[in-house]
């Protein structure tokens, strides 16, 4: 109900609540609270269904992170819906199918690199990979007295593959269940949500060319690898599980303080297929987020000030294998060889006046990675600032326009690398130095986009089109270009 109330003045400001409530920059101040499915009960005033065909394209003149490649082309067919069943209950759902390409990925032969780094299987050849992705999500929320209850299920199936040597193929299944509750206490809504996740990925690499049988590296962080089981062992799988807890405090009225606290723990074990599921490494990932904010709405304007602090930690344990008995290797001990700590603290100020929204965001980012023995370190920190302006207006009865532009700069303030260069292979040295070159760089970014929605009063279905572009310019002289196009219908 808090969300519903909060959005009502926006109607006066822009004359089209349903449109504003889904696309306004102001909406982002609610995005964290809506991670709790219980708070979806009154997330939108009006139900909607949207079908879209969209395409994202990215090109980097040189890969900013070598494992992520130089860019991608990702066409996607997507549908999403939010339907009110009764005045106090809603269902929502989302489904999408994507089939695209990722270009020139090196030192990464698995899907979901972001989740699994540094525990990936890799080689120095790499190449272009195909990505096919299916995603489904659905949820239900209901209000009973002072209580709101909700549940949500998300499922992702994905396969990444390459059609030439090294022929990697990764198949992912990723299931997340979420349950949430919120209760009205005084002038606040107090929300609590719990989440469970089950993850599995199988990854194998084949070489069809007789001359091409090169070894694969079981990477363990900052250019190191689990040498004993690298080489011809090219069939691995990951088993992951995790959970998250989030806590929210949201004001019932349009103005007031808000708080969001989330804590998530995930672990991903890498196992070797060929040695009777021998566990090689286990990655423990911890994500924490604290957001404290204040916002105020009146008939004509909106103000918000939000402070955030994010802390993300990765720790990778290497399982020390003993001598084999048959194909069984006992695990002698675990050593936490790799650690990554990432802090992001900052503030966001938002001001909206009728059809305009202006947002200023500034913060500090610290990234530290280390490998315990032989010691390796790679650190950098940046300060960043960005400014966003949005113009959102119903031009006439049929046409609504959403135009936005953003500019920002992230300046490196310090960086450090420690590597045992004398004992490193030339290819690994080049790989590490390449990534470090872009980590210690500064970045300027510019972004703009337009979305037009067209629905004459006599039409039961509306049409929309969106075009957006984003550019990043690196102080190393390289750049990144992004293009997003989408076309769709909504009703």
């Amino acid at each position, binding site marked *: 109900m808090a969300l519903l109330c909060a959005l009502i003045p926006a109607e006066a400001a822009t004359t089209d609540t349903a449109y504003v409530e889904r696309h306004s920059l102001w909406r982002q101040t609610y995005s964290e609270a809506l991670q709790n499915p219980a708070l979806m009960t009154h997330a939108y005033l009006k139900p909607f269904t949207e079908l879209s065909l969209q395409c994202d394209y990215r090109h980097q003149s040189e890969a900013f992170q070598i494992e992520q490649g130089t860019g991608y082309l990702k066409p996607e067919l997507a549908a999403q819906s939010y339907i009110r069943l009764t005045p106090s209950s809603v269902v929502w759902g989302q489904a999408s199918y994507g089939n695209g390409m990722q270009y020139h990925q090196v030192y990464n032969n698995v899907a979901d690199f972001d989740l699994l780094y540094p525990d990936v299987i890799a080689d120095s050849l790499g190449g272009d990979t195909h990505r096919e992705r299916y995603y489904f999500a659905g949820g239900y929320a209901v209000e009973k007295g002072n209580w709101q209850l909700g*549940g949500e299920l998300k499922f992702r199936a994905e396969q990444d593959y390459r059609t030439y040597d090294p022929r990697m193929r990764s198949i992912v299944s990723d299931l997340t*269940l*979420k*349950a949430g509750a919120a209760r009205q206490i005084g002038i606040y809504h107090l929300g609590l949500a*719990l*989440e*469970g*996740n089950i993850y599995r990925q199988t990854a194998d690499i084949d070489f069809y060319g007789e001359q091409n049988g090169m070894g694969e590296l079981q990477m363990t962080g900052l250019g*190191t690898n*689990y*040498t*004993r*089981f690298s080489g011809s062992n090219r069939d691995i799988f990951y088993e992951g*599980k*995790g*959970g*998250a*807890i989030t806590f929210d405090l949201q004001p019932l009225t349009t103005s007031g303080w808000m708080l969001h606290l989330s*804590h998530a*723990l*995930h*672990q991903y074990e890498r196992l070797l297929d060929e040695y009777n599921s021998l566990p090689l490494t286990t990655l*423990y990932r*911890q994500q924490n987020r604290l957001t404290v904010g204040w916002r105020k709405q009146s008939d004509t304007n909106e103000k918000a000030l939000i402070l955030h602090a994010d802390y993300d930690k990765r*720790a990778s*344990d*290497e399982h*020390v*294998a*003993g*001598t084999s008995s048959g194909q069984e290797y006992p695990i*002698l*001990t*675990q*050593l*936490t*060889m790799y*650690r990554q700590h990432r802090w992001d603290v900052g503030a966001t100020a938002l001001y909206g006046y009728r059809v305009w929204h202006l947002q200023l965001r500034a913060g500090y980012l610290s990234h530290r990675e280390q490998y*315990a*023995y*032989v010691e390796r370190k790679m650190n950098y920190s940046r300060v960043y600032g960005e400014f966003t302006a949005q113009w959102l207006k119903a031009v006439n009865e049929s046409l609504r326009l959403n135009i936005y532009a953003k500019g920002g700069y992230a300046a490196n303030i310090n960086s450090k690398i420690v590597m045992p260069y004398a004992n490193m292979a030339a290819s690994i040295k080049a790989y590490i130095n390449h990534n470090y070159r872009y980590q210690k760089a500064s970045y300027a970014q510019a972004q703009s986009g337009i979305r037009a929605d067209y629905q004459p009063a006599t039409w039961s279905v509306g049409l929309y089109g969106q075009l957006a572009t984003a550019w990043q310019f690196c102080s190393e002289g390289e750049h990144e270009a992004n293009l997003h196009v989408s076309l769709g219908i909504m009703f």
Partner: protein
Amino acid sequence: MILTCCMTLALTACHQDNDDYMTLATIQLDGGSDVTIERVQAMAHLTNLNTKHVVSTADFTGAQVQIELLRGAYQVSIEGVLSYTDQTGNKRIRSFRAVSDYVELVGTGTSKATINIIYLD
């Protein structure tokens, strides 16, 4: 919902980092019960089986050598010269080799392994 809650609560317990990386390893040379090894001049090479990292030392005290190592499974190779006293009280100096394909040196703090020697002459 119950499943979700249980999973979340089970995982709330934080992962404890395993920071005890190093062990003070003692490699003891065993020349048999009828021999007392007095001095050793030899080079010991210890290869970590998982990382293939090699550590070398020649710092013998009597029949043993101590070295700080990453905890793990090792291949040990020692070759050099030693002096010993046999059962009859005779002192001899002989070349020897001691090799083991697999030694576990995983103790938190200290680890110990004994390796048999073979004379080369």
